[in-house]
């Protein structure tokens, strides 16, 4: 960065960072359980969160630093296509309204901590559960890395270069996640959202006023988007989607919406709620964030109108540079803190979710079937550290030019667990081996196609974008969605084949009633025994939980 360290902005940033660090460590005492050394406590916050906390937790989880940096960066660079984040976050809620309550119910009856636990119980297949777990971990790693990129971008804008500040920020995050578990991000999410709402409210009133109004912002953007990109020989983009881009736009929205709640960290937040309706109520309340997201996306155009020229043409720096140009130093510091803290909350939840997957579906399933709840919690804590370290290596080692594409590659993978999880919530018609085959084919296909997409203007480069040509519709379509269709087709055909050949389908560990059970009904335990049932696949009528019962309910 050409300018030196902005001391005022840095001081404000550091002060706010310190506040959330303290909160992060104190969170261990919040809504305190008798014993944090149980995966339900460390990894799911005691499964006790109501509508209010869940709204903040999910909001902090879904709308991340990626939101603040990558979405407006895409709008800044390519125009209307970046706005797909809005339809995406509208249609995601009807989808989750339908299936998540069923996942909540069956998970509470059986003490499932991860989506792979459910797949294991439903389909009686260790291989399929492992596939779901590994996909979840694989998809989460770049997502955590993306949060790091977000922190790195604001640090750079403040004039702090080098890797050390990032490593320090992440070490702090790792330490309080280790000690407080899911309670830390839940509590920090309040601060994060407060800051984000403040910054956005100021930005959408103050900046348009400064640069000459909304009409001017859009006309400046229109002019810039119409100029020819020297790298590709085509215009940068347009204000509305061109006919050729319609399939890409719609499929990005749909594919991302279907994929979102397959991410382990989203499911973790859902399973931490105290009853079925908390999930539904939040589906109706969370669109408040989508509105904010739409406005954040438009920060990209504001950056155009304000004449921001990010260093090295790096679009990701557009929004931090915009804040730097438009705001006084102290408020720019607040805005940077909003992005930085906006990265910490999801990064913590993601690391916890990935750790839970490893512990439940790899460690206990394959390495130590007799692991006690305390041992599970211990392993999860260690793994959460390893996962974060892995993400750090990922960021320091890879090309960061378009953070959004990293996340989109994870999106391609994670969507392939949809048939096993969501179809599985409704029907057991699909054969376990067919689901596994569909998953494998789609994973290979999706990765291969994404690998083959060149960066615009650079032939023979790879992972250049989320969409690829599909002959059937003569348009570019989101690769995740194409792979998903292939996944389902393979699943359908092979199910028919396996059924005809009478390949054993395994035993269903769940019953119809499990999917509609609610808190307070028979057999829905507050603190399920993690030891007996998932492994045995038996209904959860097992003996008293081994873990100490929590005093606060």
């Amino acid at each position, binding site marked *: 960065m050409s300018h030196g360290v902005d001391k005022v902005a840095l001081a404000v940033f550091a002060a706010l960072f310190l506040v959330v660090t303290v909160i992060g460590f104190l969170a261990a005492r919040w809504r305190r359980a008798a014993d944090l050394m149980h995966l339900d406590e460390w990894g799911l916050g005691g499964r006790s969160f109501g509508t209010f906390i869940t709204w903040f937790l999910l909001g902090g989880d879904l709308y991340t630093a990626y939101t603040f940096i990558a979405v407006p960066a895409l709008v800044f660079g390519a125009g209307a296509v970046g706005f797909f984040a*809005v339809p995406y976050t509208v249609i995601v809620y*009807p989808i989750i309204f339908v299936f998540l309550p069923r996942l909540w119910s069956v998970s509470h009856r059986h003490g499932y901590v991860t989506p792979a636990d459910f797949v294991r119980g439903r389909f009686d297949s260790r291989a399929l559960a492992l596939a779901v777990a590994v996909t979840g971990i694989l998809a989460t790693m770049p997502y955590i890395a993306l949060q790091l990129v977000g922190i790195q971008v604001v640090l750079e804008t403040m004039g702090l270069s080098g890797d050390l500040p990032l490593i320090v920020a992440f070490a702090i995050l790792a330490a309080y996640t280790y000690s407080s578990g899911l309670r830390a991000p839940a509590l920090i999410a309040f601060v994060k959202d407060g800051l984000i709402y403040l910054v956005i409210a100021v930005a959408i009133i103050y900046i348009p006023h400064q640069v000459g109004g909304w009409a001017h912002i859009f006309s400046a953007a229109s002019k810039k988007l119409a100029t020819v990109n020297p790298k590709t020989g085509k215009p940068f983009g347009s204000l509305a989607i061109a006919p050729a881009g319609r399939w890409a736009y719609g499929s990005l929205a749909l594919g991302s919406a279907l994929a979102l709640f397959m991410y382990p960290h989203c499911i973790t937040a859902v399973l931490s709620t105290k009853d079925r309706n908390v999930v539904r109520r939040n589906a109706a309340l969370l669109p408040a964030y989508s509105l904010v997201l739409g406005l954040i996306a438009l920060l990209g155009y504001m950056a155009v109108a304000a004449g921001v020229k990010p260093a090295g043409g790096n679009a990701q720096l557009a929004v931090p540079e915009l804040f730097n140009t438009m705001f006084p130093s102290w408020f720019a510091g607040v805005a940077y803190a909003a992005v930085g803290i906006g990265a910490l909350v999801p990064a913590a939840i993601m690391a916890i979710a990935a750790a839970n997957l490893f512990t439940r579906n790899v460690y206990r399933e394959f390495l130590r079937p007799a692991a006690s709840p305390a041992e599970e919690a211990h392993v999860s804590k260690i793994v959460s550290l390893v996962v974060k370290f892995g993400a750090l290596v990922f960021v320091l080692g890879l090309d960061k030019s378009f953070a959004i594409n990293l996340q989109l590659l994870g999106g391609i993978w994670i969507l392939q667990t949809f048939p096993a999880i969501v179809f599985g919530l409704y029907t057991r018609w699909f054969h376990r081996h067919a689901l596994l085959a569909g998953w494998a084919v789609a994973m290979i296909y999706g990765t291969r196609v994404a690998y083959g997409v060149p960066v615009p203007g650079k032939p023979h480069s790879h992972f250049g974008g989320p969409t690829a040509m599909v002959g059937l519709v003569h348009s570019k379509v989101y690769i995740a969605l194409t792979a998903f269709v292939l996944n389902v087709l393979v699943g359908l055909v092979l199910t028919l084949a396996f059924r005809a050949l009478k390949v054993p389908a395994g035993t269903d560990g769940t019953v119809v009633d499990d999917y509609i059970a609610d808190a307070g009904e028979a057999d829905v335990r507050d603190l399920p025994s993690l030891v007996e049932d998932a492994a045995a696949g038996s209904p959860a009528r097992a003996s008293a939980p081994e873990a100490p019962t929590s005093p606060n309910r």
Partner: protein
Amino acid sequence: MGGTGGDARVWTARAVVGVLLLVPCVALLWVPSYTRVKPQLFGFPFFYWYQLLWVLIGAACLSGAYVLTVWLERQRKAARR
């Protein structure tokens, strides 16, 4: 679900919930219906304000679906007793 399958009001409520959930998805996935710049509103091209408007309509649809679902679950629990 079952238990109260014969009740016409229950089936109507379920159908309405289905429609409420489907409407925002169809509206926003029907991309050609809104990829234009005019008419503008407060300086916003149509493409942008229309989609932001659907965020609000979508939230209203889900609130309606929520109220009906709560009622449906109450019916289900009552029928079980």
